[in-house]
């Protein structure tokens, strides 16, 4: 049943791309779309505008085009709020997460699809079902576990006495090392990869690791792209876990640094918006360059079971 839906879906998609579809009422719908899109984009236009508006102009009637555009907000954002440090932290956390997911999660998904072992279905569904566990349920235990990791942060071998991974970048990374959804995406991807290539390599005496790294991994560039994007944006955007696990400014991530702008009573919107732009640009660039795989990755991932 699932398979026939899949094929129908695929052929429908193909037909869509070729452009066969009813075209009635186009003008009306395009006008509606333009209006909605403008409404949706308005906040962003103002963010960009405010980020270039000098503090002196930022109150009272705010114009979309500042009379005296300035870069001072960006300078303030960088130097006053330690934003550069936070950006570096987020980048480190993001890159490590991308690396671990691209290796561990993709390797696991590959094995689930290509190297089945007894019990692999049950294990697979157990692992990916953890993706549905609410953050609030694991938040407190993870915090206590991060604190109790043995032999780091002043802890003894039983995980007592120190602060463990609390307030370290390793602590921030802890919940993201393998994201179950990436295992799922990888398995989906490799399920449709040709088996013959691996068989041939096996005949030639290649080891399994070699087959994975030199035969299948090079085929999996689109998968790697999607896994990397999901891992990076997931970590870059998270707020609650870094808030809980870090306490000092040296290890705060970029979203926390943004929120810190609010702490000082009188919010300075100019620097705040400059910071927001800076924090958003990396994700936006990733998105724009991978638009197609990003959106289809999302919809495919959601559709396939």
């Amino acid at each position, binding site marked *: 049943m*699932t398979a026939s839906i899949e094929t*129908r879906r695929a*052929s*429908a998609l193909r*037909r869509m791309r070729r452009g066969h579809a*009813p075209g009635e009422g186009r003008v009306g*719908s395009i006008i509606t779309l333009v209006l*909605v899109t403008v409404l*949706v*984009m308005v*906040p962003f236009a103002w*963010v960009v505008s405010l980020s270039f508006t000098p503090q002196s102009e930022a109150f009272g009637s705010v114009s979309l085009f500042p009379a005296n555009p300035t870069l001072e907000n960006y300078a303030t954002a960088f130097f006053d709020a330690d934003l550069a440090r936070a950006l570096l932290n987020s980048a480190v956390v993001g890159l490590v997460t991308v690396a671990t997911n691209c290796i561990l*999660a993709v*390797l696991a998904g590959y*094995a*689930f699809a290509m*190297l089945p*072992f*007894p019990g*692999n279905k049950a294990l697979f569904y157990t*692992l*990916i*079902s*953890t*993706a*549905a*566990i*609410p953050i*609030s*349920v*694991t*938040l*407190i*235990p*993870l915090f*206590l*576990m991060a*604190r109790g990791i043995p032999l780091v942060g002043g802890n003894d071998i039983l995980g007592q006495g120190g602060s463990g991974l609390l307030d370290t970048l390793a602590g921030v990374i*802890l919940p993201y090392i*393998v994201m179950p*959804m990436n295992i799922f995406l990888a398995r989906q991807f490799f399920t449709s990869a040709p088996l013959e290539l691996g068989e041939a390599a096996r005949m030639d005496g290649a080891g*399994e690791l070699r087959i*994975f790294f030199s035969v299948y991994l090079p085929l999996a560039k689109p998968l790697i792209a999607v896994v990397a994007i999901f891992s990076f*944006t997931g970590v870059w955007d*998270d*707020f*609650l876990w870094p*808030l809980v696990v870090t306490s000092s400014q040296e290890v705060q991530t970029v979203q926390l640094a943004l929120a810190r*702008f609010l702490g000082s009573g009188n*919010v300075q*919107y100019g620097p705040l*918006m400059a*910071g927001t732009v800076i924090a*958003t640009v990396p994700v936006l660039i990733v998105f724009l360059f991978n*638009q197609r795989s*990003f*959106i289809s990755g999302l919809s495919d991932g*959601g*559709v396939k*079971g």
Partner: protein
Amino acid sequence: MTSTTIAPVAAASAPAGATPPPPPRRRRWSRTAIFGFVFVLPAALYIVIFQLVPVVYGLVLSFTSYSPLSRSGPEFTGVDNYAELLGDADFGNALLVTGRYVLQVLPITVVLALGLALLVNRPFKGVGLFRSALYVPHIVSLTAVSMVWLWMYSQTGLFNEVLGFFGAPAQSWLLDSDSALNAVSAMRIWKALGSNMVLLLAGLQSIPRDLYEAARVDGAGRWATFRYVTLPGLRPMLVYVVAMDIIYLAQGFAEIYVLTQGGPLGSTTTVNYLIYTEAFQYNQMGSASAMAFVLFALIIGFSVLAVRGVMGRQK
């Protein structure tokens, strides 16, 4: 954040499409099977230790009284935490706030997103531009968009500018307990629109085109086509979207933290926000864990109900 996107669909559709597993065969594992197991092992161990163990640990904690500041470990108190939640006015309030938040964001988002998905489903020049533009609020982090809306709601922000233009008095959107949750909801509707639209678009594109042709041959009008072809075909994706929205919305935190800090007068204190303050400001990790499990149970319960509701009209 994105890590919860997949499992429900997989879990929901797995039983439907799966044939009963063959009886286990007793034989030696092949070489590839051993490698398969070894390849899976690191990821599996990690997920067991840092996803499954915490669930059990949290459940245990919920039956204890525990402060991380105390020298002694968790102290077993039975069902005391759960019993106390029954009469806890703050928790009751947080449940109501969370429920209202989900109920007022979810239907509006889904209906608007469906409308937009129908509009961008037709191929025309530049349709990709609209799809991407509408999706942008989804890819910008919740913290960042909350910052933006914080400004728009501020005394000199965009909304009051617009009101002023029409001669209306400025509102204190987020500082008024009557309007604060609505203001947060408006932001969340705007934020969730694009991702719901993309998912529903994928659902629309999965509907076989010949069904539309058949409907046209039968002389079905636009509404009949929508009612008898589009909606039934869209149902699996609709189920997914509704369930995911419930799961995400019921865990609202970052937007609350940035926009209102749970105020004014607890009018935007969601359960997740309450759990955070209880655990990390008041150091009551036992009762906070109990709250988390009540929320967990409610999320599962309501997701199942919603899935049934959407699926139920199938016949």
